[in-house]
């Protein structure tokens, strides 16, 4: 609409019908109005503001100044901030203050003010508009409190985090030192025991069986210590470069060649199929550790009397590559043990030697590479591990 079109429409409106007149608009406007001399003395005030404050007009006019209506802190702020701003730039906007009512109550307001000057440029009068923001102030106080709380909690979390990091570091150091210090005497013990076994003779017929059990216990100790050392070393290594990819076929074949031999007639059958994705986005050393653990587990936990069949395959998923290791072993009761599966030193088949480190490492390394591990298992039928790694 152009200006002239708007003007043309004016005769059609009869403001008398609305009974709107400027004096009444001033007195009963939905906001408070007042005017002050340059020294702050109130010279005009509208009915809305008077009823908000509970004052009669004659109690305020020429007797009180605007800043006397503020709380003392508000007055300090007004005199050090608002008053100079008014004189410097002629107006202030959206200042948040609290007015003191006649009955001692508090009225939160938003204040706008302009300074009028006379022809000589001297300050003449200050015009002030006030808006009741009782509700808004409550929200603001809530926000302020929430902000203070968030700050306090953040600080507390930071301290806790610092302490946890320190504790973790101490534990790592402790485990590293302990495994390192244990390894030497256990190795000595194994050597001495081997020597003893070769040279000594025992009369007790049960001795041979006991010798075997001691040997087994020694091997178990060594493998636990090795596991501990590996965990700590992995944790000390910096995060692997996320761009490194590793080809699967050669690596998997190499790992299979290094697996311990199985009893005659029970040799495992491996199926490798990396056609869907020949490589994974994961550092070679990490992937080696992951696959070696999963494959040796598949053999260790084979179903007695059934020839192990192990399939290693890749598949594509949206934005990810999936590596699947499937066996036909004993399986696990995931409903019972699922939550603890990846915990350090947690073991589910006490009759099979192991250190409880392998799956913990698998889980950790895959997470380090930005991926995740999923397991499905049926007791007596087999287990499938799925490593889902981002592309």
């Amino acid at each position, binding site marked *: 609409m152009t200006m002239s079109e708007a003007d043309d429409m004016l005769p059609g409106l009869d403001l008398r019908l609305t009974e709107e007149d400027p004096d009444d608009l001033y007195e009963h406007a939905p906001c408070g109005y007042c005017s002050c001399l340059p020294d702050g003395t109130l010279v005009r005030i509208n009915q809305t503001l008077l009823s908000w404050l509970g004052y009669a007009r004659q109690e305020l006019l020429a007797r009180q100044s605007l800043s006397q209506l503020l709380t*003392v802190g508000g007055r300090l*702020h007004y005199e*050090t*901030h608002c008053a100079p701003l008014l004189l410097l*730039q002629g107006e202030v906007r959206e200042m*948040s203050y609290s007015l003191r009512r006649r009955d001692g109550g508090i009225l939160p307001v938003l204040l706008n003010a302009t300074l009028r000057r006379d022809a000589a440029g001297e*300050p003449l009068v200050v015009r002030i508009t006030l808006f009741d923001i009782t509700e808004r102030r409550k929200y603001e106080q809530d926000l*302020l409190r929430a902000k203070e709380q968030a*700050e306090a909690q953040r600080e507390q979390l930071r301290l806790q985090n610092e302490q946890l990091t320190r504790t973790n570091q101490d534990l790592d150091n402790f485990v590293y030192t302990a495994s390192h210090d244990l390894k030497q005497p256990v190795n000595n013990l194994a050597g001495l025991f081997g020597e003893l076994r070769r040279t000594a003779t025992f009369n007790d017929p049960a001795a041979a069986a006991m010798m075997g059990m001691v040997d087994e216990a020694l091997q178990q100790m060594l493998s636990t210590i090795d596991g501990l050392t590996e965990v700590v070393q992995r944790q000390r290594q910096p995060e692997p470069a996320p761009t490194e990819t590793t080809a699967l076929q050669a690596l998997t074949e190499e790992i299979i060649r290094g697996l311990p031999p199985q009893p005659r007639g029970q040799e495992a059958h491996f199926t490798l199929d990396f056609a869907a994705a020949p490589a994974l986005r994961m550092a070679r050393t990490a992937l080696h550790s992951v696959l070696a653990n999963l494959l040796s587990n598949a053999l260790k936990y084979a179903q007695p009397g059934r020839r192990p069949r192990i399939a290693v395959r890749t598949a594509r998923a949206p934005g990810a590559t999936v590596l699947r290791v499937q066996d036909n072993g004993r399986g696990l009761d995931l409903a019972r043990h699922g939550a603890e599966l990846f915990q350090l030193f947690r073991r589910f088949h006490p009759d099979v030697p192991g250190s409880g480190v392998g799956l913990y490492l698998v889980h950790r390394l895959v997470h380090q590479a930005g991926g995740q591990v999923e397991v499905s298992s049926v007791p007596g039928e087999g287990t499938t591990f799925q490593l889902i790694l981002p592309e």
Partner: protein
Amino acid sequence: MEILKRLNVTVSGSGPRALVFVHGFGCNQRMWRLVAPAFADRYRVVLLDLVGAGQSDLTAYDPARYSTLEAHADDVLAVLQALDLRDAVLVGHSVSATIGLLAAIREPARVARLVLVAPSPRFLNDVGYTGGFEPADIEDLLDTMDNNYLGWSAVMAPVIMAQPDRPELMAELHNSFCSTDPAIARHFARVTFLADNRADLPRLRAPALILQCAHDALAPRAVGDYLHAHLPDSQLVVLDTSGHCPHLSAPQATIAAINHFLKPVRTA
């Protein structure tokens, strides 16, 4: 020089002596714009923003260092030294009247005279002393500041820090004449309104002019009388104006009073 940049020092005018204007709490050197130019024909006019205010280097505001007014006095003296000023006239408003006082006591050779504009050596009431305020009033001021900064304060951390990665914040700070970083303003408010420098008054050797407003909520008449009684060499001039900023509300009277004070021959 680094200190001149840090305090956003501007120098104008010329003359054998220098007038150094130091703003008070709540604003910056622009407060002097109705007064300072009147002296530029006879004096070197030095304006500055205290660290934490105006266009000073906000990153230099270390709350621990600036927990007393002495640190600001150090800064003012460093400016005088950098400009190689001696026998300067220090004009300080409100809290900076105290800062000027501390500077003049520390290095009398640099500060020959003091003009104390709406000064108060202590804002809080004490036994036998009327400062005008109670501790609760200062908390109320801090709350008022919080309420006013709520809209645009994005400083989540309680620590005071510069945010060079948030230029929109800086734009907002420059929107109005006297805005500053809310966390710094809060800290400076505490330092200002909880300071007590009454014991320093008798140590001043330089002549001082006390410029008081007739009706000032922050520095009542009793405070002017107290200063006059405890400063060894002072004149008290009460300006017929209201508020806490006579250099804005009564600039001509302020200029006249300073001119009178600086006349070569004066009666004590």
